[in-house]
């Protein structure tokens, strides 16, 4: 572990050196072992926030929620961290010309890496990022790439649009003609928010991919513990968030199971 820095209320940027991941697709995650002891017992999944293949430098952006993240934020620089990954299916990058990234809360974590990679691939990329207050958002100039525009929203209006990021998305899509908004929406955040994003995208007939969360044990598809109901050809199937996901076609995900 190289460094750990607060970026927003209860949020930290963790940099880990010397991690050999090979090629990473945005949306993929790493599975971290937090302690050698057994409480907390399981590894914890975190989306790749950025990865520098040359310097083998991995960054994660995480929010303190419970035991494991409470321990992570107290680690001493220099402590070894056991990293498995990259795992799971990432976002689809091909065939996109104009991308809209919609992140709620800590859901912005994978979107930074996605934004940078899309922009590097020449995709016109815009990010909508929301939090409760400006304290819950990273610095205004914290960007995935200089050419990625970020529109901020806060529920109390303390930065940018006043309202939820979904409300901002709706306005954005209404105000701008489809050709200028997006031919693909990517989203990550709380499940209730994702459900709204998918509905909104569908109303506008824009394809949408979402990154889901679940409690993980193995992280590689072996334990069948992390499933989420998804509409498949054969009917409703329980697909593994760690293996078939965490990124799914938003229109196939069943949100109100």
């Amino acid at each position, binding site marked *: 572990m190289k460094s750990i820095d607060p970026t927003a209320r209860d949020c930290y940027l963790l940099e880990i050196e010397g991690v050999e991941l090979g090629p990473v697709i945005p949306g993929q995650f790493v599975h971290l072992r937090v302690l050698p002891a057994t409480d907390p*017992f399981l590894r914890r999944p975190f989306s790749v926030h950025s990865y520098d293949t040359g310097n083998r430098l991995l960054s994660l952006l995480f929010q303190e929620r419970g035991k494991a993240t409470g321990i992570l934020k107290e680690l001493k620089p220099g402590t070894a961290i056991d990293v498995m990954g990259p795992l799971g299916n990432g976002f689809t990058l091909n065939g996109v010309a104009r991308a809209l990234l919609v992140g709620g809360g800590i859901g912005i974590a994978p979107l930074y890496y996605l934004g940078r990679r899309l922009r590097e691939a020449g995709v016109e990329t815009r990010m909508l990022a929301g939090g409760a207050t400006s304290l819950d958002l990273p610095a205004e100039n914290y960007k995935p790439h200089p050419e990625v525009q970020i529109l901020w929203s806060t529920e109390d209006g303390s930065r940018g649009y006043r309202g939820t990021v979904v409300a901002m998305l709706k306005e954005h899509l209404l105000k701008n003609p489809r050709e200028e908004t997006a031919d693909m929406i990517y989203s990550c955040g709380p499940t209730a928010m994702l459900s709204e994003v998918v509905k909104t995208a569908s109303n506008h007939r824009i394809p949408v991919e979402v990154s889901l969360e679940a*409690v993980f044990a*193995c992280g*590689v598809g*072996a334990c*069948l*513990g992390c499933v989420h109901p998804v509409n498949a050809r054969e009917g409703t199937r*329980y697909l593994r968030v760690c293996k078939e996901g965490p990124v799914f076609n938003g229109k196939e995900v069943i949100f109100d199971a």
Partner: protein
Amino acid sequence: MPDPVISVKIGDLQMKNPVMTASGCYGYGEEYQDIVPLEAWGAVVVKGTTCAPREGNPPPRLVETPSGLINSVGLHNPGIETVIERELPRLGEKGVPVVVNLAGESEEEYIYLARRLEERAEVEAVELNISCPNVKKGGIAFGSDAVSAGKLVAKVRENFSRTLLVKLTPNVGNLPEIAGAVEKAGADALSLINTLRAMVIDIHAQKPVLPAGTGGLSGPAIKPVALRAVWEVTASVNVPVVGMGGIFTPEDAIEFILAGANAVAVGSAIFVNPRIPAEIVEGINSYMKQKGYENIGEMVGAARQ
């Protein structure tokens, strides 16, 4: 000094080392392939397999507890035919013995499953799961009573000629009695233990975290209970025992062997440390050298003298 001999034979199941996967924690052996080679294991026990495909229980299916994990997967599996067509041929090529864990809802289903596998040479052994706490019908009902467990095992025995393991539940007051009945009915070996029935409540939502209410507790939290089960059963039973439940370190595995287990299986710990089979093999090797054992058989039950 030559390397100690750590190969083990359970019935006709010949393993190069005594470390097996616990059913349900290693899928069908494919998922971990990139991280740690299948060949590290003495044998691979695949996910509990049923007659028809099952989608399993609704999520959430997992909840972490102090040093443990509760699961309520509910035997999510593609069914015996798909396992035979798609998984076994691939697994059969690895040179690692394959054990199929079988779960039925009735005597007939168990017999059918055993018969289907009797025909498949890739399968060295089956493990009868009469101890799954996560399905409504069958399973644990057979495993909670000595008479019905014995009857079921005898029936399956008539229909399966290779190695027959029977996996027991610790959620009973008379484990040695059930183990004795299963031995008498013709089991070649016993697998001890399946998970402990357990639950967690979400105090905000005011309902059990798992939609099924209860699930099965595994992991280091249950190791002392599992070890006691092995200790107690091996005092009165003569067939080999595969010890499992919370093994997390090489020392844990050695404890099970000293308690009387002929082999061990690792479940939940794989999720945390996929490299565990090689570490356990290494740990057993150096323990044996230190204690002067030449063959692992000498170690089995050594804590009882």
